[in-house]
């Protein structure tokens, strides 16, 4: 971990050494540990394939999560099945853990799907492109859980840049005032597009929670075990009625902000090299190998699984058929609606007015 961030909770050093922490600990079975490794490798493979497909003209845009796999997988795997995730457009690791198919993630960015998946089925909202908007949605959802007397928790995802958004700060106030069962999971990936995190405020992000009246904790975001441990504590705190927690996962966006961005224009290559040494996947791999929890054949097997998944994604994306134009009306209301029916009929009539439309 970076020396300037000594406060961050860490259970696994960048070299893959398991270390103790006075407040946080976690005990996972070997199968669970291997599962975390598999999740991270497959998420990275989805991410690199989607980036390549964008470069080949198959996607309009892609926001890579490269380097943030531990923060996303660790936090999402801490959630109970009924908890609800509110992701941004970069949370491919979160949506993966919520059971969303990779092709559904890509369909949105190919521009042929309005939302990608059924949020109530996966207990995971659609990708929010508006910075910070999903944090308000998450708090609203959490307050609804309170009204229902349920025990679910909302986990809202956002970045360091969004910490400066009005929406996010309003969400903090509401959550604190009503002790809403929500976890604020901030991935501080060091760059709000081209703005470095040290120019986004004078105190560390997790410390801002104090001013709102709930705890903040900083975790090594490239340490999947620490992220899992810290998120579990925050989830239990919320579930037992003690209100929100802000988690700052200190990590690094190794790729571009999106495929439309060129990070070499605003940051030095040396920075990337420093963070490569803290790679979230490599450190877990080193730990698994050292402890004898997994061996080369297991790692090879996961890699092959990744290649197969990538091929399915490639073929699947190219075979995607644009939806029928009238399908845009399907999800406007949950039940039939006269005005929508009228609009649908009007559009179908218009489409039928072309020469090759038959009839």
């Amino acid at each position: 971990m970076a020396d300037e961030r000594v406060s961050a909770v860490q259970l696994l050093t960048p070299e893959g050494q398991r270390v103790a922490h006075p407040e946080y600990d976690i005990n996972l079975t070997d199968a669970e540990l291997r599962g975390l490794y598999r999740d991270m490798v497959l998420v990275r493979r989805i991410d690199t394939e989607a980036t390549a497909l964008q470069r080949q003209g198959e996607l309009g845009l892609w926001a890579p999560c490269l380097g943030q796999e531990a923060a996303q997988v660790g936090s999402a795997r801490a959630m109970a099945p009924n908890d609800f995730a509110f992701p941004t457009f970069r949370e491919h690791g979160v949506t993966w853990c919520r059971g969303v198919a990779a092709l559904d993630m890509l369909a949105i960015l190919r521009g042929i799907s309005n939302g990608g998946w059924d949020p109530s089925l996966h207990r995971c909202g659609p990708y929010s492109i508006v910075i910070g908007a999903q944090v308000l949605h998450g708090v609203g959802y959490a307050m609804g859980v309170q009204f229902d007397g349920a025990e679910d928790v909302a986990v809202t995802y956002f970045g360091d840049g969004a910490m400066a958004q009005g929406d996010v700060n309003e969400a903090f106030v509401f959550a604190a005032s009503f002790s809403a069962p929500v976890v604020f999971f901030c991935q501080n990936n060091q760059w709000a597009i081209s703005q470095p995190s040290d120019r986004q405020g004078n105190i560390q992000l997790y410390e801002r929670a104090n001013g709102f009246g709930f705890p903040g904790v900083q975790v090594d975001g490239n340490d999947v075990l620490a992220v899992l441990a810290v998120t579990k504590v925050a989830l239990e705190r919320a579930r037992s009625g003690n209100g929100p927690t802000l988690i700052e996962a200190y990590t690094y966006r190794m790729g571009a902000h999106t495929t439309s961005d060129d990070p070499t224009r605003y940051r030095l290559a040396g920075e990337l090299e420093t963070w490569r040494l803290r790679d979230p996947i490599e450190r877990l791999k080193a730990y698994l190998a050292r402890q004898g929890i997994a061996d080369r054949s297991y790692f090879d097997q996961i890699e092959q699984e990744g290649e197969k998944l990538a091929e399915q994604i490639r073929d699947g994306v190219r075979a995607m058929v644009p939806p029928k134009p009238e399908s845009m009306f399907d999800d406007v209301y949950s039940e039939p609606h006269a005005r929508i029916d009228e609009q649908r009929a009007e559009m179908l009539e218009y489409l039928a007015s072309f020469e090759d439309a038959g009839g």
Partner: protein
Amino acid sequence: MAEQQQVFHLPDVGEGLTEAEIVKWRIRPGDSVAVNQIIVEIETAKAVVELPCPYAGSVKALHVPEGEIVPVGSPIVTILVTAKADEREPVLVGYGVKTDHEVHRRPRKPGIQQDIAPTSPARAKPLVRKLAKELGVPLDSVTPTGADGVITRADVLGSTRNGHSTSPAAAPNGRDDRQPVRGVQRAMADAMVRSAFTAPHVTEWVEVDISRTLDLVIRLRANSAYEGIKVTPLTIVAAAVIHAVKQYPRINSTWMESSQGAEIVTHSEVHLGIAADTPRGLLVPSVKAAGSMQLPQLARGIHTLIETARAGRSTPADLTGGTITITNVGVFGVDGGTPIINPGESAILAIGRILDRPWVVDGAIVVRPIMQLSLSFDHRVIDGALGSRALVSMANFLTDPAVEMVPAHATE
């Protein structure tokens, strides 16, 4: 296993990029390539980007040399695909789908009322429309080759080569003459656009019988005080403008925008700009402190100024700092116009040609030399009443210079 050719087209790797430069090829014809192997570096308006190959196989041909800029959608490389055949063309997002569910632009059935889509206008992206406009190419005359009948940049350029252009400067060899806009032309263009689209222009005009002005010119030329000095009607017009400024100082001013708001700066001195047609183009040098000069001095100043400009020796100081300008369009044989104010000034006077015309004097039609004065002014600074009064002042001066030149109190 049948070999199959796959062409990789330049994708839009940003959001709405239209072109990219091929910076470096990482493959050569004959090389074998794997899926997602980086094959080329391209530079777009936003970034340098590496493109991964969508196919496995061998490189048949590179279609674009390094250093060339090509539009999005251009074929850049052909790969001989040996493995799994994939009969689908890669889809370029945003550039249409090459499949049978292409539904975007189809002919309407005849007889259907055209209230939704009247005659389908030529389809082109804004940048292509701009290019066509600049080149004077009507989009309707261009044959589209892009997906969905969209007119591409190349179509527009191709059509200018085919002689569709209505650009006026078509050279005799059938090709349009194209000259980069630089130097004086560029400076003029920038200044005129800046002025025309910031200062709300108003133009007023009046016709003047200048027989007494011409008489005065003849008398001054014969006067020993004016020996060696070129006296022209323009000399008297300059005196008329300075005279009007003394009566209405506001016409000699500058509209200034600053962070504190706008200010109108009324200048205490007249630096008289004279628009000059020179071999380098239009220049507007100014006679400094013209308002404090006696007439012989003013006449000499204007003459020297114009000669210096025509010889191409105007200094930057000559060409800046004017406060009000005269442009003589009469020398080209026209009667008048709606001149554009020199940026930083608030008024400009155009003088037309001098022509003998029938003129009514004391109820009788007589022949008189007539000249039109056209005054454009910045309505932020000068309202219609002030502009009209100033113009009438100039007209009165030219109608009877002797009366106007002698201070009123001296005649008492």
